[in-house]
């Protein structure tokens, strides 16, 4: 491990969790890819897309992933860590893009580790 090569920052941020189905689309593209691209565009620091193996949601259907991991409507959960301002910019897009789903927000404390530029 290259000790001392990492910078540590601590700040307060918001965490959004967006729940929808894997088959949901936005302009022909999987919805989670579209949201991820938007997060990246807004400079949001962290976003992860998780696929559940079973679940149900606002549509009140049981969703589950079949053996073919790409041919089902599995539940998707996106976790997005962003500042209050970035969330404010992202929310109108989420309103438009997520037709059926749930968005939950909470305030979180963040510790960020990043490599110093001379190391990378």
């Amino acid at each position, binding site marked *: *491990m*290259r000790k001392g*090569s*990492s910078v*540590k920052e601590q700040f307060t*941020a918001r*965490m959004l969790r967006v729940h929808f189905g894997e088959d949901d689309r936005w302009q022909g593209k999987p919805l*989670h*890819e579209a949201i*991820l*691209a938007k*997060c*990246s565009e807004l400079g949001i*620091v*962290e*976003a*992860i*897309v*998780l*696929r559940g193996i079973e679940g*149900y949601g606002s549509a*009140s*259907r*049981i969703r589950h992933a079949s053996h073919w991991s790409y041919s089902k409507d599995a539940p998707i959960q996106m*976790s997005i*860590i962003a500042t209050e301002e970035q969330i404010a910019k992202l929310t109108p897009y989420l309103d438009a893009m997520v037709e059926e789903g749930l968005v*939950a927000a*909470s*305030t*979180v*404390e*963040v*510790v*960020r*580790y*990043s*490599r110093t530029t001379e190391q990378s």
Partner: protein
Amino acid sequence: MLQPGKAVKVTIYLSDGATHHGVPLYSSILDFLFFRGVAGATVTKGIAGFGADHHMHTEQLVELSDRLPIKIEFIEAREKVEAILGKLEELAGSGLIEMQETTVAKPAQLSKPARPLTPAHLKIEGKAQIMRIFVSEEDRWKSKPLHEALVEAMRANDIAGVTVYRGILGYGAHRRMHKDKPLVSSHHGSIMLSAIDSAEKLRAFLPIVDQMVEEGLVVFSDVDIVKYAYRALDTDKQEPAPAAAKE
């Protein structure tokens, strides 16, 4: 646990075709009774019958064969029945619910002895925190995958439980997403570890995270522990079960 003496027997009559959130209604009701701790319940399927709508439901009429009568029966103390009756009426919809006084002569015995109780020193209640660590799947710590090393470190530090998630897509402090090729292969996955324990224990663990994580994000949020079920084993090596929490 049902005691000998006065009790109430509840019978719910449904037609088999009825569904609730996409599953057969009887199984929804059975789940509800199960999770509300009702002592026991039995579902029986009739072979013929008719209900309020006076349509005969029988197996011989093919077009009606999916609407055979279903009967759910359970016996419980009156207070318990009254506590769940409202929700039960809502679930049963158009079905009939009947109650009658009964006497329990002998309650059913558990087929297995009850599990030993949670060791007191491992009980976690009330306010806690959830610590999520976002790293990349290729990150390594002393030649082993970083997320595995973190799990081992947490276990060694008695963190109550941790779950590792592999994202199907993502980007973060540890990596940039390729705009032209957004689908990340399984070897370039985003990893999220989610650990729940008291704020003090998680804070005490943070210096270890400082040592191990070069690029990544650690996110803390407050949660209330609702239930912490611990599987007590006979051996000394005990594995904590994951805790349920709400934010």
